[in-house]
């Protein structure tokens, strides 16, 4: 009987629950915070509100906010991982073995990388796109609202899987890209790698769907008159990034599937022996992984383009150059993946080719930087917090970029590869390029979504903490790399003299943590004092693009009248035009919007269950959840219409109320 029961649950047994104090602590903390949030929602009787107004919503602005919330919570989770790594490396020297066991340390950095890329950077990116893109295009919605909701919930399902590994089983200890043969069953027999595979697989399919969705949105839903060459630069960047998603993410899907087949069915794709080829995995994963870097960074570039133009009160300099630069980057990003493994011994010709291609990417990137600088030229620059993030970005990104060009020379890379120099390089690029951009975007578009601005003073403090903390945390890593310190070390010998630098890096990490705390405080303080910073004009920054032409917070239908566009920086042009033309009274029309639905949540729940069961080999339940997903999909597609109509009179009433509300304040 017990045997049968054990079989029902696959390889899931009581042993799967944590037994060492730090993991238990982490698990208790996570479960505790989760229960606390649940309790609060229950206490304030907000479940119905959450479900009806948020979880089932197909409004991209709400989905965007949910992406942001998840990503920021994950930023804290990944940040705690980072602090643990810093603590370990600052203490684990010589006779001391630090606070973590080596296996636990390896799980921590694997989780840190996975979470930061997939659930923080991707989350912030898709969050911003959801918030801003339809508004910038003058559209009421995205092309496929249901797909959008489903993609978000798949992202959540993947996120839950990563975090679940804290208290049921273990996470992968094979690094964030899980190179075989280490990640094969032979060397990693536990469930860790399977957690990694399935959380990425599920979230990755969500990203792929989002990619299709936003690409079609840009091509088919622009406001009348907005030709491609009149789009805001952010929209161009998103178009570039989504093109990359469409071509890169299927490779990730295939690669993860093959690795899982190796682990569960005993195929020989990447095994050592049996006719497998581990080098193929490394090629495949980077054929996705390098474009992924640009998937994250292009939208952030787009944010900077908007920010620098708005706060310099000038049109973006070199619009056409910028567009060409984006497409050069998109194309080139598929021709450089091998620079992640020059040390695999591919031969001089191959290495040199990929090295040169890598350097060529620096050209369009450099062009973008000069265009941003010349947007400031003869401007009238207002140094609001988003602009500070931009300045910080230029400083750090240029330095990191130079380190990158150095590493693009294969023989030089032989000395940098897999050292802390490399770690410092890619953190410089991704933190300054992606995170700073997303933070600038949050500050910039926050009033459009919530109707009030964020506190500037706290924002600036947070920025300086990030900047100083970053320099303190990562300059020592550049130096450590030159001292021969490799990445992912849970212990090193005292005679190497590395400890002081690791301690400095730890201090830097703490200052960054302070910055994050200030950012959280900024949200709270700004919310409490929201009456002081309310935006009644809809245009708090003297903006240039269409999102600022609608009131703040933007109504759920975005625009009462779909704007007509004749130039780039359409809203700026509208503001320059004489008043009487703008004031022409237009009649209101019915607005068709999608109905809320919970099917996306259910399908993602099914996907989560499926992933969990595959991890633990509970195949009967996996089959059931797959069946459930199919049934849900069939039901969803069986109805012809999922639309609701907001009548013209209703729109009129809402608009009138807004106008009155605006006057009252």
């Amino acid at each position, binding site marked *: 009987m017990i045997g049968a029961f054990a079989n029902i649950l696959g390889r899931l047994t009581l042993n799967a629950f944590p037994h060492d104090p730090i993991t238990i602590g982490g698990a208790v903390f996570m479960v505790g915070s989760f229960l606390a949030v649940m309790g609060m929602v229950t206490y304030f009787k907000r479940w119905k509100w959450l479900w009806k107004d948020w979880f089932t919503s197909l409004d991209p602005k709400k989905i965007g906010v949910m992406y942001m919330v998840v990503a920021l919570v994950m930023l804290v989770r990944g940040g705690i991982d980072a602090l643990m790594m810093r603590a370990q490396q600052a203490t684990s020297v010589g006779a001391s073995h630090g606070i973590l066991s080596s296996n636990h340390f390896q799980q921590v950095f694997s989780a840190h990388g996975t979470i930061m890329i997939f659930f923080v950077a991707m989350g912030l990116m898709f969050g911003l796109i959801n918030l801003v893109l339809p508004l910038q295009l003058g559209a009421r919605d995205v092309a496929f609202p249901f797909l959008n909701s489903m993609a978000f919930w798949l992202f959540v399902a993947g996120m839950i899987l990563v975090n679940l590994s804290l208290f049921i089983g273990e996470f992968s200890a094979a690094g964030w890209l899980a*190179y075989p043969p280490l990640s094969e069953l032979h060397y990693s027999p536990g469930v860790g790698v399977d957690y990694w595979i399935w959380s990425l697989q599920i979230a990755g399919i969500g990203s792929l769907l989002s990619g299709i969705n936003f690409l079609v949105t840009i091509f088919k839903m622009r406001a009348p008159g907005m030709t491609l060459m009149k789009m805001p630069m952010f929209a161009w960047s998103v178009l570039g990034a989504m093109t990359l998603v469409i071509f890169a993410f299927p490779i990730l899907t295939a690669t993860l599937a093959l690795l899982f087949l190796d682990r569960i069915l005993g195929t020989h794709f990447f095994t050592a022996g049996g006719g497998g080829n581990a080098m193929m995995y490394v090629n495949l994963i980077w054929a996705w992984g390098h474009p992924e870097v640009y998937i994250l960074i292009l939208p952030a570039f787009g944010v900077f383009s908007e920010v620098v133009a708005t706060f310099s009160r000038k049109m973006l300099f070199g619009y056409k150059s910028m567009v060409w630069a984006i497409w050069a980057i998109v194309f080139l990003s598929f021709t450089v993946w091998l620079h992640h493994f020059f040390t695999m011994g591919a031969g001089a010709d191959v290495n040199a080719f990929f090295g040169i291609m890598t350097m060529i990417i620096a050209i369009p990137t450099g062009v973008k930087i*000069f265009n941003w600088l010349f947007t400031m030229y003869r401007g009238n620059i207002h140094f609001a917090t988003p602009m500070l993030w931009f300045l910080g970005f230029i400083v750090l990104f240029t330095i990191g970029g130079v380190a990158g060009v150095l590493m693009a020379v294969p023989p030089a890379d032989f*000395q940098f590869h897999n050292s802390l120099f490399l770690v410092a390089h890619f953190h410089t690029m991704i933190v300054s390029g992606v995170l700073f951009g997303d933070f600038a975007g949050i500050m910039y578009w926050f009033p459009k979504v919530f109707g009030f601005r964020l506190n500037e003073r706290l924002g600036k403090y947070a920025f300086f903490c990030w900047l100083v903390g970053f320099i303190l945390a990562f300059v020592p890593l550049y130096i450590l790399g030159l001292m021969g310190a490799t990445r992912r070390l849970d212990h090193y010998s005292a005679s190497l003299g590395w400890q002081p630098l690791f301690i400095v890096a730890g201090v830097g990490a703490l200052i960054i943590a302070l910055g994050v705390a200030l950012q959280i405080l900024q949200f709270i303080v700004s919310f409490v004092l929201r009456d002081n910073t309310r935006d009644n004009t809809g245009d708090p920054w003297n903006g240039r693009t269409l999102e600022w032409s609608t009131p703040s917070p933007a109504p759920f239908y975005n625009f009462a009248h779909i704007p007509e566009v004749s130039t780039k920086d359409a809203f700026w042009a509208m503001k320059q035009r004489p008043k009487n033309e703008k004031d022409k009274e237009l009649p209101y029309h019915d607005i068709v919007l999608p109905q809320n639905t919970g099917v996306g949540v259910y399908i993602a729940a099914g996907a989560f269950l499926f992933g969990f069961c595959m991890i633990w080999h509970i195949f009967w339940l996996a089959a059931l959840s797959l069946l459930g997903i199919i049934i849900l999909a069939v039901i969803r597609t069986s109805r012809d219409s999922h639309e609701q109509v907001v009548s013209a009179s209703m729109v009129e009433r809402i608009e009138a109320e807004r106008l009155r509300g605006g006057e009252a304040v």
Partner: protein
Amino acid sequence: MNKKVKFSFIGLVCLAVLLTAAWYLHRTNLPVLEPKGQVGHQELDLIIFGSVLSLVVIVPVFMLLFTFAWRYREGNPRAKERYRPELDHSIATETIWWLIPSALILVLSIVTWNSSHQLDPYRPLASSAKQMNIQVIALDWRWLFIYPEQHVASMNFVQFPQNTPVDFTITSDAPMNSFWIPQLGGQIYAMPGMTTQLHLIASHLGEFNGYSANISGKGFADMTFVAKSSTPGGFNNWVRTVRQSHQKLSEETYNKLLQPSEDHSVIYYSNVQNGLFDAEVMKYMVPGLMTGTDNQLRITQRTSASSHQSHSSTYKSMPGMST
């Protein structure tokens, strides 16, 4: 006034930090920047060349950034008259910053192409001295060095004569590792079922740290070794010492080494079985060479109670296993 005090204070702090850093760097050892061999030297030259070339971009970017930020700030009384909101492109200047970086990259590309060939790790080094071959096997989590000409082997320690080019032939009988002696030159991966090659030479006497630069499991962090460059006489003496070891390296003793171990003591082996290295590479490529016993040992070592599937079963079930 207050602002002035604030800025001078920040300036002082920065200066103090920089001075401390300079003093610290001065007295610490930076192996990549202090190479002890030809390959390392050439790689360092490349790094310096690239860095200097990059200054051509960095300096203007920083100058423009801070100048523009200062001159065109809102608070500047003269910013208003300088303000030109319609200035949104200029073919001439845009051409400049398409072309200048392109020119830099062109220069760097030529250097890249040449250096990639010149410093190709597979390329033998020109030297009057006769090249020496050392076979390297990355194990879990130790380094085994086999001297095929001397028929000896050494664990976690490798020695070679000064000014003699060394041809390291590298494989792994464990997950992927990366073989790296920073003071002598860059790294290359060690992969099961494959061999890679790295040519290095030491121009100085001394002991250099060697690392595995790629994660290979639990004990990877301390998977270090010492590479010693000695006089030719010193090397011959060392070989003689190794030959006196009672430990011998045969297929059988080698298979025992495949058990994961975090023992980092140096072990010497006299009398290494001929062709051992090639056999360990080939066993991943051809069925039947994988010895069942050793595989079984490793499986019991690694497999937790929750999992009993393993790849060894597929090897065993294959026909032709007995050969």
